[in-house]
């Protein structure tokens, strides 16, 4: 293995990440320098030291006993390696999932004299260095905690364990990447539609896992399991870095060294596995799906009888087919489904509202508000990316006799269709957990649909005003400025839609006027429809401009 080639290649891989994520904010001259990451890392390290010192001061000021502090230090120190493994694995995986399907081929590097081992190590170094500021902030945070609580040796073990954990996460992604490439090729050939469904479900599960990981619940549960001397934890290699720390915190130096060595051994095994797999599946085949030998020609749809034009139907059919098969789009489709579930977590796990006289105003339907917020936000993001997704394929639409209005309608329809899945999911959760009445359910559905329409139309309006048609390895579909403006306007629209609710509530409290939740939702829904109509008109104007001047 040539070390110089390895680092040069790692630098190239990292630069491609940097430029894809930061080019719009910083000039090329800055993004050209990998030192930028070290700089960010240093700042975060200093910030970590500050937070760590503050944590110890707070604990002492709050009068925590040494035993309590010891328990907290164990949770923090032990949790860091688990968090880092999960973080590096998830970020690496998400990075993979965001890659455009067209850029999956390894042809661009296959012709270069780079061996699989050089590729694996360069890619691992690149992933680890790109996200190293996180390691530095955690190390910075634990430094004052270690010193001020008399656990300096544990801190030193933590530093080694953190680096090992970061590499374990990065190498695991490499293994998964090779396996997924192989599995995709095999399944796509025979799987067809089943593979597509499995991939969408898999994507949703991965994103949900990432969310759960960052919620902290999972880590605390694992640490509790380790602390309670559960013998089974010894058998889990991913917990070995954590066990090396908890051992030294209990003054068991031998055990700590043992688990640290085991962690390094585990990393070596993973690295060899990654290497073997990469060498075996070095040449990636294009991700082609096989559906039938003859292809399917669509018959006359019944929807035509209710006035849906053939062109609109063709466009929506194309949207669904294309979107469900492109993995960089699948992740976007998952957003409107995941967001409501995540947002409703706190509501679902909080005690159920009481029906006492004092809380007469409170209806389970109130819980729908944050849930609808999640649906709305997801719809907005999906809508914003819908135009940019056309990328360099835009000429197909521009050269065909399709009016801008038809394109906008199909984009809104597609976005709303996907978001409705999230809405139904949210409705299901609400009905299941809070036994809402039929009237409330109908109200929820009605306001939900208007919200979806408003946010989908707004998303398409923003997406067509600020499209990003560049087909890089990590396509964005909407410019950064567009995303910011869109997110801002999206929230404003939702706040305005909930304004009648607020006004009627205030009127009830201060003027003792009768309050109707249904009425406030109805008025909010009407506002939503008005916003949808305005956004629709704006979208048509922008799309018309795009069709008249194909982006160069």
């Amino acid at each position: 293995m040539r070390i110089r080639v390895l680092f040069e290649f790692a630098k190239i891989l990292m630069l491609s990440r940097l430029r894809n994520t930061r080019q719009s904010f910083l000039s090329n001259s800055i993004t050209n320098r990998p030192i930028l990451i070290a700089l960010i890392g240093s700042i975060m390290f200093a910030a970590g030291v500050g937070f760590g010192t503050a944590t110890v001061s707070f604990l002492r000021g709050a009068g925590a006993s040494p035993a309590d502090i010891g328990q907290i230090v164990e949770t923090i120190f032990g949790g860091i390696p688990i968090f880092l493994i999960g973080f590096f694995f998830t970020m690496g995986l998400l990075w993979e999932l965001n890659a455009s399907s067209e850029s999956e081929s390894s042809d661009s590097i296959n012709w270069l004299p780079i061996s699989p081992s050089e590729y694996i190590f360069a890619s691992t170094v690149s992933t680890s260095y790109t996200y190293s500021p996180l390691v530095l902030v955690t190390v910075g945070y634990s430094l004052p905690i270690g010193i001020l609580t008399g656990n300096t040796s544990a801190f030193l073990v933590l530093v080694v364990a953190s680096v090992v954990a970061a590499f374990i996460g990065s190498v695991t992604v490499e293994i998964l990447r090779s396996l997924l490439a192989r599995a995709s090729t095999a399944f796509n050939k025979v799987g067809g539609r089943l593979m597509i469904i499995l991939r969408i479900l898999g994507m949703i599960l991965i994103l949900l896992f990432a969310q759960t990981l960052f919620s902290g619940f999972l880590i605390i549960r694992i640490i509790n399991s380790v602390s309670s001397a559960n013998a089974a934890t010894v058998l889990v290699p991913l917990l070995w870095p954590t066990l090396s720390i908890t051992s030294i915190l209990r003054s068991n130096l031998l055990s700590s060294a043992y688990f640290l060595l085991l962690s390094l051994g585990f990393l070596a095994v993973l690295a060899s596995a990654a290497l073997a797999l990469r060498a075996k599946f070095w040449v990636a085949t294009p991700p082609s799906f096989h559906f039938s030998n003859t292809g399917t020609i669509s018959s006359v749809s019944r929807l035509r009888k209710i006035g849906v034009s053939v062109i609109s139907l063709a466009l929506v059919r194309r949207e669904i087919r294309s979107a469900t098969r492109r993995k960089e789009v699948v992740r976007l489709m998952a957003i409107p489904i995941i967001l409501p579930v995540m947002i409703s977590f706190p509501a679902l796990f909080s005690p159920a509202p009481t029906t006492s006289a004092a809380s007469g105003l409170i209806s389970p339907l109130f819980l729908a508000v944050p849930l609808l917020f999640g649906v709305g936000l997801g719809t907005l993001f999906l809508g914003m990316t819908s135009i940019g997704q056309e990328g360099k394929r835009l000429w197909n639409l521009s050269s065909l006799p399709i009016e801008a209005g038809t394109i906008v309608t199909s984009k809104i329809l597609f976005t709303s269709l996907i978001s409705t899945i999230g809405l139904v999911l949210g409705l299901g959760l609400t009905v299941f957990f809070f036994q809402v009445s039929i009237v409330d359910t109908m109200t929820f559905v009605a306001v939900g649909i208007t919200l979806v329409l408003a946010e989908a139309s707004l998303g398409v309006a923003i997406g067509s005003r600020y499209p990003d048609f560049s087909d890089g390895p990590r396509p964005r579909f909407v410019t950064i400025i567009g995303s910011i403006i869109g997110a801002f306007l999206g929230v404003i629209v939702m706040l305005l839609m909930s304004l009648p609710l607020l006004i009627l509530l205030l009127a009830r409290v201060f003027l003792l006027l009768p309050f109707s939740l249904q009425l406030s939702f109805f008025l909010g829904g009407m506002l939503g429809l008005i916003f949808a109509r305005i956004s629709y008109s704006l979208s048509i104007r922008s799309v018309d401009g795009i069709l008249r001047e194909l982006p160069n």
Partner: protein
Amino acid sequence: MDSPGPAIEAEHLSKFYGQVLGLNDLSLTVSMGEVRGLLGQNGSGKSTLLKSLLGLIHPSSGWVRVLGVDVQKAPMEVRRLVGYVPESPRLYEFLTATEYLDFIADVRGLGYEEKKERITRLIESLDLEGKQGETITGYSQGMKQKVAIMGAILHHPKILLMDEPLNGLDPKSARVVKELIHSLTRDGVTTVFSTHVLEIAEAICDRLTILQNGRVLAEGTAQELREKAGLSNSGLEDVFLKLTGTKGVEDIVEALRR
């Protein structure tokens, strides 16, 4: 003949891409049923001209009429009449060839029976049988080119605009496309296409237009261009190089070898 006037008229077309001039006061007339070849070096304006003829880009000045219809005023009408194959076409790669053509047919307003018959026949003619149920992602460049050509002629266009249509095609398919152009011409279809392969241009085209720096440098039949260049017995390549003022080819080759 459907229309008494020319099939395509472009007058004083200019197109700026920022500070860069893509087309420079270019005028062009193509007769009905004619096969016109556009020749020129890279960046001479061939693709920009073809896009302007279809209304895919808005000229900075000048106008275009296709079968008497103003492209800027009625782009939808023009798109109904024209079939277009861009240079290195990016298709909807996650559709199968059949699904892609089905989509085009629906947008073009073909009925179920007609589209089924057309798609089946085109797939058969251009040797895509057995592959049409696979997503385009797995296709070679030549296969993608074939699908783009099928999409362009699916609705029996009156005008066919093609940018380097023979790129990546195998000899048999290239021959099929050449014959197809001849056959469409017999049916009165007007074809304008750009190419770098001068032998093909000479073999297929009624007239040739050589572009340079966004302007028409020379226009005429192959023989007229030879006479203009003063090279009556030379190949079209020599004529092209002389007219475009390309010098020192030997020096460039020598520099590349070193």
